[in-house]
């Protein structure tokens, strides 16, 4: 059948070419090239954060904010505290939206004995209600703050065209309070699942405080001497492969894993104790932990916003002059470090764009872990191995449409 070749329940079109005798896996990426770095050239900087969210419908807010940051970096624009808080709130929504979608609709069905995510509604209505609660509260935050649950409409260089009213924020805070138990439940579900055993010497990489950190760097190294995001191109490398329309990324050529598991490795949250940082399947649990953390964070930000004196009516925007410049906007997207670099002329017309997405960086690690999985499961039948390989790919939560942008 013409449609059978792609891995189901991942974002975008990928397939595996597996040499079982050699324990060698190639992850083929089939998505058509949209050439975003080309189609941005000739557009205005104000259009960049309109266009780039369309790279990915699962993490549009991350692309929106990365483009805004690139422009603000180049034009030396200081954003207001309200803008900063509202954007942080958007990030909380984005993380919860994306992780909930991945866990409940793409990944967890592997472990819960269902196929389509909605089958959980019958099998375990309470768990499914928790999933819908998280989806609803995160979609609502995105809709109120960013203007829509997918593809923001309210954001602009320097701030917001339009900001929420106090009443809207109060309602969101109420909803956050009502759904805290559901966020906890998601973690509870995940921490009870027995994920397949796998031991991979993972290189975990994350952005933190303008730096790019790797667990392979000497842990005693002070934060400041880690490579700066400004030098991302020297650190996050990309190469072409003849079986993929996505480039394959790495940390100076080495295979790396980015995303929830890597972020938690570098965090101080006690919840991370249950994670095995050498097992990529634990990325699922890491996402569930992050759902709870970002849920709490959203509550805190809402309280902070409501405690401030702003009247929340109208806009939160800094004025700026356009001149020829260039800037880099980086952000931790749900799947890991995202980099947007833009250059523009004195009319604000984009002349150059470079985008490196998290999934591009994860592709090499997926192959490395897939090879390790075959090595460590030699006694299993080919069918079992195939199944495990697909589950492994899903655990990484690859966003193939992001990777082929």
């Amino acid at each position: 059948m013409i449609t059978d070749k792609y891995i189901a329940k991942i974002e975008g079109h990928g397939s595996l070419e597996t040499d079982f005798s050699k324990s060698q896996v190639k992850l083929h990426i089939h998505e058509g090239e949209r050439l975003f770095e080309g189609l941005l050239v000739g557009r205005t900087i104000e259009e960049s954060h309109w266009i780039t969210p369309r790279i990915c419908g699962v993490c549009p807010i991350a692309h929106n904010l990365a483009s805004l940051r690139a422009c603000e970096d180049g034009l030396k624009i200081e954003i207001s505290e309200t803008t900063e808080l509202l954007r942080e709130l958007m990030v909380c929504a984005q993380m919860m939206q994306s992780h909930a979608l991945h866990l409940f609709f793409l990944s967890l069905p592997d472990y819960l004995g269902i196929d389509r995510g909605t089958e959980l509604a019958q099998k375990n209505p309470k768990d499914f209600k928790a999933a819908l609660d998280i989806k609803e509260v995160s979609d609502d935050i995105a809709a109120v703050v960013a203007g829509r649950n997918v593809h923001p409409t309210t954001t602009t260089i320097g701030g917001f065209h339009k900001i929420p009213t106090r009443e809207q924020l109060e309602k969101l805070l109420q909803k956050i309070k009502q759904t805290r138990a559901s966020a906890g439940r998601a973690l509870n579900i995940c921490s009870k699942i027995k994920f397949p055993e796998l031991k991979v010497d993972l290189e975990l990489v994350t952005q933190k405080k303008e730096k790019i950190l790797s667990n392979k760097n000497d842990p005693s190294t002070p934060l400041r001497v880690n490579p700066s995001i400004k030098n991302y191109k020297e650190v996050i490398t990309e190469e072409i492969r003849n079986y993929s329309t996505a480039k394959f990324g790495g940390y100076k050529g080495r295979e790396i894993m980015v995303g929830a598991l890597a972020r938690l490795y570098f965090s101080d949250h006690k919840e991370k104790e249950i994670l095995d940082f050498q097992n990529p399947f634990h990325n699922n649990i890491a996402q569930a932990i992050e759902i709870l953390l970002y849920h709490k964070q959203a509550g805190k930000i809402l309280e902070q916003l409501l405690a401030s004196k702003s009247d929340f009516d109208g806009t939160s925007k800094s004025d700026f002059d356009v001149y020829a410049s260039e800037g880099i906007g980086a952000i931790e997207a749900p799947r890991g470090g995202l980099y947007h670099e833009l250059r523009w002329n004195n009319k604000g017309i984009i002349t150059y764009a470079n985008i490196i997405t998290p999934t591009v960086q994860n592709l090499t690690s997926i192959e490395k872990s897939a090879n390790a999985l075959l090595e460590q499961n030699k006694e299993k039948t080919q069918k079992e191995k195939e199944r495990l390989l697909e589950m492994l790919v899903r655990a990484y939560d690859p966003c193939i449409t992001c990777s082929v942008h």
Partner: protein
Amino acid sequence: MGLKPKVAIYDFTDCEGCEVEIISLRERFLDLEKQVDIVDWRLGQERKSFDSAQDKYFDIALIEGAPITQDEIDTLKWLRENSQYVIALGACAALAGIPGIMDQEKRAGWYKKIYPSTSSGQVYKPKGIDALPLSAYVKVDFAIHGCPVNAGELERIFEELLAGKKPSYRPYSVCFDCKRAGNECRIINKKICLGPITQGGCQAICISGGSPCYGCFGPREEANVEGLKQALKKFADEEEIKRYFTMFYNKNEK
């Protein structure tokens, strides 16, 4: 259509945001789901069940994305042959969307820049041909518009389909939605807007958020495109106007 229409959901090259909108219907999606049999949906399930005894595998094929690669074009033709109704889901399928900004003749140059050959001599082999709407290759029975699609419209159109009716387009432009939303008129404020020529149903969500309208809902019937262009020329230069008309309409301009 049988009692429970057989539905396939496919996606070609795009952001998959319209499928995200389907899932974002949440409880309402559960209701819709009960009324149909989703027999093939790569993003949502592994199950694929084709009843070969049937004349056509699918009553409804919902297709998201622009068919850019040969493989996608072939799949699209196969879907057309095997489906009663082919429905474009969202701007990429209906209009070529954002990927359609890229002109075909410029692709070769961008491939070289974006996928540079390696020092070891490896050269990238492009897969994409051109970003075109579904209708460039097959007959499309209906389009659910938007970038992304609007949840309310999605529900309305599905209900019409399930009631056995041919779904209808909104007989008004975005201006109607925009007035109802209480927005100031962008054109009166000397800001470019494609709302007047664009089909309504979006609730003017972008303009309400402060963003422009680039016309993702597609041109409405008998839209006076030339008239709008003339009006816009009074305050905007040609380059600027062209940028608006090439956001979603690059492959559709009449």
